[in-house]
């Protein structure tokens, strides 16, 4: 990662002027500067030719190492396809095109500077504008002067290759609801503020001094200002209430809408027919507070994405072989039977059969397992894996969207939004609440009418509806959930929205994925079997593995922590097989059984084996087992104490006994689970009435994450990768999962307590209202007090309890 690059730059002898990495193998000199590879030098050359070397002044060593970058000329050919271009661009007219690229490599001020000076690199570019947080750049260019393909090539030449994937091609319309909400809030605030100014004189006896003319004018102005509030700011409530009534349910918005309409119509009657002051200021304040609550409930994490499906990872184009000629075609035009070529580090786009080459496939995106799998000719290779090593040819067996993995997204559970079978607390109460209020109001009307005081009856009726408008009630939920959301966010547990908390509180069954979720690469268990290793041998092994980036090498490397390295000659790695080198004239090999020539049985099972041989004699082997994340036993035990725990794994069940020992007998384990099996497993649990929580990490869990009541994606690097889910959790805080679940319940209790508080206010209000004693001043005082006290109560309670439960450091 870029940050590490910056740190590495500090001490060593020669560091690359461009990327700041240590120049290990070779040092290239150009312009009196040192570069670690031709790629970095090339970027510098491009920049210096165009007098853009300020790039290197803004941040220290801003470049990205170009060592690993493959430079194939034809890989952007698909951008010549007019259909693809049309799908990618934001806007196009006869002269200009606008396009937004996602560039994950943006990491410092220099990046912003360079990308915003693109027009100096090519006259066809009009401008570039970077969104640093989202790591995006919007480029405007003249399509006659530079084609999209040339633009992408230019970007990749200066080290900022945009990531263009399948989901970019079928862009959805961006959502504007967020902006609308802010605007509604602004309108409500504006009207409320001004109405308060006009209403203020009414609250004091001095109003009489102003005389009737003023009073009337102020009231009419209030009506005028109430119009945008009633017809614009409050529209969401009418819509939601109407929808809910249509579905024969009563949600929280029904009593709110009822209150708003009563307030408005009665105030109109009061002002125009009776010449009184009305309740318009209360209406404005009500909406203002309600909308603040709604806004506070939303917290978006710009850097995270909760909606990614396989399309976000799949390439937009593939290399197809037609009569031994390569051509790059868009993935959507790939058909069953086509022969495709997949190069090193490229993703396999469709289920296919291996025709040629040595496939060595890394399924870490899919399963969470980091150790690549070797495949032989004629074997089926599933889509979603990444080839490591030489190019391979594949015959496509299924279209990209119908594969073993991708077929998941054709399941019906992806079509509809998550159904909220579990009603939110507020909505469940609001039904009873609304009917009680209506009963009281009607009771008051009947009571006064029977006594012959119809007008007082009408006043009492409307007053009850107005005073009980559940503003405080409606605010307790958003503020409690909004605060909880923030507490969780500080604890590196990011929720998609506030509703997830309420669903979390109900969970009674927790399902874990094994690989990558319960186990972690960093916790691998390494053991050595065979002849004893001398200190020298250990050093030799350490030297070999430190030359490799293979997952198994890394694990052996960290097992040999503290061992010094030697000079081993001619070290080189053969992808998919092992590493070899010469030490004191002897050939040393480290790798698969085949590679070292091991023949013989009776090996330990339950993990990956790495053999070590000198001059063809096998000395011994390493057994590398996936290790469990730190503290995971306690997590499972704590959750298991009051919930059912299940475990799903796509692997063989050779670890069953081991896992049984660790987690106890109560954990239900299922092995050999395909992505679809996982999805169906959750669905079965749901149908049996369980409230499920799925914790997973790979694309193969995507179906289960979706089907579960709450799906949590665990990831080691938050911004990197996670399948679509309701929540994203940093793997480092996995041990806090029970605490988070517990706190979700706590926040439910806080909501209940604040309901109690607002009911108290309502009762007081109703006692006055049925007697017809409610005045606009009374309303204008009680309403904000109740709302504000509820907000203060929930905010304090949530944060205080979060600190007490150790989820937060300080209250503020």
């Amino acid at each position, binding site marked *: 990662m870029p940050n590490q690059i910056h740190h590495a730059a500090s001490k060593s002898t020669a560091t690359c002027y461009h990327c700041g990495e240590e120049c290990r193998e070779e040092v290239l000199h150009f312009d009196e500067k040192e570069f670690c590879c031709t790629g970095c030098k090339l970027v510098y050359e491009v920049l210096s030719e165009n*007098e*853009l*070397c*300020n790039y290197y*002044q*803004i*941040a*220290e060593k801003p470049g990205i190492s170009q060592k690993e970058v493959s430079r194939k000329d034809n890989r952007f050919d698909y951008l010549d396809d007019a259909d693809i271009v049309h799908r990618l661009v934001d806007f196009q007219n006869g002269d200009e095109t606008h396009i937004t690229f996602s560039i994950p490599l943006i990491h*410092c*001020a220099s990046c*912003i*500077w360079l990308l*915003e*000076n693109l027009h*100096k690199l090519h006259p066809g570019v009009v401008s570039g504008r*970077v*969104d*640093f*947080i*989202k790591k995006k750049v919007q480029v405007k260019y003249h399509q006659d002067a530079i084609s999209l393909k040339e633009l992408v090539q230019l970007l990749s030449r200066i080290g900022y290759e945009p990531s263009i994937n399948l989901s970019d091609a079928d862009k959805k319309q961006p959502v504007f609801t967020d*902006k609308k909400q*802010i*605007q509604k809030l*602004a*309108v409500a605030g*504006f009207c409320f*503020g*001004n109405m308060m*100014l*006009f209403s203020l004189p009414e609250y004091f006896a001095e109003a009489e001094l*102003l005389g009737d003319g*003023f009073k009337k*004018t102020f009231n009419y*102005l209030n009506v005028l200002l109430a119009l945008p509030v009633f017809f614009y700011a409050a529209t969401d409530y009418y819509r939601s209430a109407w929808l809910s009534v249509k579905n024969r349910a009563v949600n929280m918005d029904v009593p709110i809408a009822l209150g708003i309409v009563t307030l408005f119509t009665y105030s109109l009657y009061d002002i125009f027919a009776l010449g009184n002051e009305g309740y318009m200021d209360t209406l404005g304040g009500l909406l203002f507070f309600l909308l603040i609550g709604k806004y506070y409930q939303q917290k978006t994490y710009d850097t995270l994405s909760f909606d990614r499906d396989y399309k976000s990872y799949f390439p937009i184009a593939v290399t197809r072989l037609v009569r031994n000629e390569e051509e790059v075609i868009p993935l959507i035009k790939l058909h069953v039977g086509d022969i495709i070529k997949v190069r090193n580090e490229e993703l396999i786009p469709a289920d296919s059969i291996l025709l040629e080459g040595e496939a060595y496939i890394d399924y870490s995106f899919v399963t969470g397992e980091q150790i690549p799998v070797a495949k032989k000719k004629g074997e089926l290779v599933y889509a979603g894996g990444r080839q490591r090593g030489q190019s391979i040819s594949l015959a496509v067996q299924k279209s990209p969207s119908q594969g073993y993995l991708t077929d998941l997204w054709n399941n019906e559970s992806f079509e509809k939004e998550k159904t909220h079978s579990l009603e939110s607390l507020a909505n469940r109460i609001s039904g009873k609440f609304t009917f009680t209020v209506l009963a009281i109001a009607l009771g008051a009307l009947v009571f006064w009418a029977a006594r012959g005081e119809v007008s007082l009856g009408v006043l009492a009726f409307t007053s009850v509806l107005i005073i009980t408008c559940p503003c405080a009630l409606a605010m307790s939920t958003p503020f409690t959930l909004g605060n909880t959301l923030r507490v969780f966010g500080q604890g590196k547990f990011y929720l998609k929205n506030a509703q997830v908390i309420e669903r979390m509180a109900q969970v009674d069954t927790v399902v874990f994925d094994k690989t990558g979720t319960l186990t972690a690469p960093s916790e691998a268990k390494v053991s050595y079997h065979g002849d004893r290793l001398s200190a020298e041998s250990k050093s030799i092994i350490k030297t070999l593995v430190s030359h490799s980036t293979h997952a198994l090498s890394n694990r052996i490397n960290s097992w040999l922590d503290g061992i010094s390295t030697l000079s081993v000659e001619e070290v080189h790695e053969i992808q998919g097989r092992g590493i070899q080198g010469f030490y004191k004239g002897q050939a040393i090999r480290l790798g698969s059984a085949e590679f070292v020539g091991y023949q013989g049985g009776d090996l330990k099972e339950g993990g990956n084996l790495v053999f070590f041989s000198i001059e063809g004699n096998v000395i011994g082997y390493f057994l590398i087992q996936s290790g469990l994340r730190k503290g995971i036993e306690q997590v499972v035990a704590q959750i298991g104490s009051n919930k059912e725990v299940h475990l799903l794994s796509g692997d063989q069940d050779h670890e069953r006994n081991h896992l049984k020992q660790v987690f106890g007998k109560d954990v239900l384990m299922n092995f050999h689970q395909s992505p679809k099996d996982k999805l169906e497993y959750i669905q079965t649990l749901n149908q049996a009435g369980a409230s499920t929580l799925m914790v997973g990490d790979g694309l193969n869990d995507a179906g289960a994450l979706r089907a579960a009541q709450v799906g949590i994606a665990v990831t080691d690097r938050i911004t990197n990768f996670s399948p679509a889910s309701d929540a994203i959790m940093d793997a480092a805080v996995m041990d806090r999962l029970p605490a988070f679940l517990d706190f979700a319940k706590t926040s439910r209790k806080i909501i209940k307590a604040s309901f109690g508080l607002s009911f108290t206010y309502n009762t007081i209000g109703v006692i006055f209202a049925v007697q017809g004693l409610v005045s606009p001043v009374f309303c204008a005082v009680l309403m904000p007090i109740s709302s504000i006290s509820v907000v203060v109560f929930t905010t304090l309670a949530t944060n205080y309890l979060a600190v007490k439960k150790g989820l937060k450091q300080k209250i503020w």
Partner: protein
Amino acid sequence: MEVIFVLIAVSLVLAGSFLFLFFRAVKSGQFEDDQTPAIRMLFENEIKTNEKKVPSTKSK
């Protein structure tokens, strides 16, 4: 006291124009990215060539 009517009109127009400006700002996307502009404003306008060590515009 009739001057109050004028003042009310003035105050409404003033507050209304602020509301309008806020709407425009929201529409233009000013509130969408609050990080990049802060960095962008520190860049110097003209580009210094040659190897003059530009006294630091480095971000720490």
